[in-house]
């Protein structure tokens, strides 16, 4: 039986792990490498890492304390962690071209998460699907609920695209992407629970797997999302950093309730 996935998301800014709220407030948490190690100890199903830094380059601090290699760039970072990471790794952020995609895949990413390209140059998305396969391309779509209607936003939640979520996600599917990463901006960092209504609607309408993100505040929220929607995976950031051993605790809770999760 195919298992429902529980995926931690790490948001990076200036090479640091940050907590995100409403896509605008970013609070420093710590060194991403030690957090990746913790995820490996937890035996997580998959890992998503998103570089949300608006500047072209992160990792401003010259770090020399990780083995012998300094970690200055996102590529250094990916190379280092993928050496020991024996689970799927998806990388997002600052992907503007086919070369950006290639660079990430060659350095250890199994999938790339694209958002900007879908809006501004979707033919590159189609080319990437052809070159790397649909399994390697995940479309990320951010939305806000306005007057009971889910509306797509782009550019880190800054620009209202004036498009309905359903139409835009169907367009993403048509471009050939292998998965959809659905992020509800209103719920980001609120711990109020997932936007079940829209997740359900989109996951039923699409034929590709949907990863739902935004709003996880307890393990009940993960369970709710699995029971009440057809999402193939749930993702969360903040909560895995602030609650002690929250990943294994959530997994154990889910395993008691449903058998479609990986032990």
């Amino acid at each position, binding site marked *: 039986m195919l*298992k429902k996935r529980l995926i931690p998301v790490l948001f990076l800014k200036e090479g640091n792990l940050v907590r995100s709220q409403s896509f605008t407030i970013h609070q420093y948490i710590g060194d991403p490498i030690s957090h990746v190690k913790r995820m490996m100890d937890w035996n997580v*199903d998959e890992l998503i890492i998103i570089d949300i830094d608006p500047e072209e380059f992160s990792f401003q601090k010259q770090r020399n304390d990780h083995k012998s290699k300094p970690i200055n760039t996102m590529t250094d970072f990916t190379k280092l962690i993928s050496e020991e990471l024996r689970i799927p790794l998806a990388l997002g952020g600052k992907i503007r071209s086919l070369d950006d995609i290639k660079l990430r895949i060659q350095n*250890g990413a199994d999938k790339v998460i694209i958002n900007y390209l879908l809006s501004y140059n979707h033919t590159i998305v189609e080319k990437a699907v052809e070159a790397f396969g*649909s*399994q390697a391309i995940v479309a990320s779509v951010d939305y806000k609920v306005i007057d009971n209607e889910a509306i797509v936003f782009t550019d880190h939640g800054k620009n209202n695209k004036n498009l309905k979520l359903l139409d835009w996600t169907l367009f993403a599917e048509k471009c050939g992407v292998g998965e959809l990463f659905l992020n509800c901006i209103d719920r980001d960092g609120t711990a109020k629970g997932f936007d079940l209504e829209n997740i359900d609607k989109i996951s039923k309408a699409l034929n590709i797997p949907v990863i739902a993100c935004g709003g996880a505040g307890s393990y009940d929220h993960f369970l709710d999302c699995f029971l009440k929607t057809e999402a193939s995976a749930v993702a969360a950031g903040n909560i895995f950093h602030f609650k002690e051993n929250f990943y294994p605790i959530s997994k154990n809770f889910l395993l008691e309730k449903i058998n479609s999760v990986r032990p």
Partner: protein
Amino acid sequence: MPKVAILDLGIGNIKSVYNASKIYEDNVIIVENAEELYNVKPDKIILPGVGAVGEAIKEMRKRGFEKCLNDMVIKNQVNFLGICLGMQILAEECHEFGNFKGLGWIKGQVKALKKNNNLKVPHVGWNSIKILKNEKNILSDLNNKDFYFTHSYALECDEKYILSKTYYGYDFVSSIKYNNIYGVQFHPEKSAKDGEMVFRRFMAL
């Protein structure tokens, strides 16, 4: 000293296969064409593969691997492990964005996953395997364990080749074994500890 050759078709991330192989074997070499492969004279060959099968088959022929693999794996019985597309390529024909002729080592065809019960395609995530062969093999004791899959196509072949099946609306072929040839549809290099075990067993053949 055993030598493991990993074939690079120039598409996708083969580093994770390299990294996982290195845990159990020091002497792992990535080769980009047949000439290099003949020089290396490996006693194990791994063909990883992600992406589109047509592109992979084209690259395999362009790099001269077809004849070389027939010499080494069929004639000289070098142990072989095909991963994902690396398994699909072994079939006679692959129907994915057109029809492509595979190596034909396994009598069978690669076809789109059957769509039923509104199941999502691609089949992405962790799914368990049901082992059908009792003899000792690289998946022994891994019955019912979860492995990471990501694919839209699957191999359809004679039962005699099938090592395990996996359920996704129906039972599809998730691994094969034929003499010295192994193929897995899942990604052992991305399947945590149980995946590492597959590499360990293959290295010990």
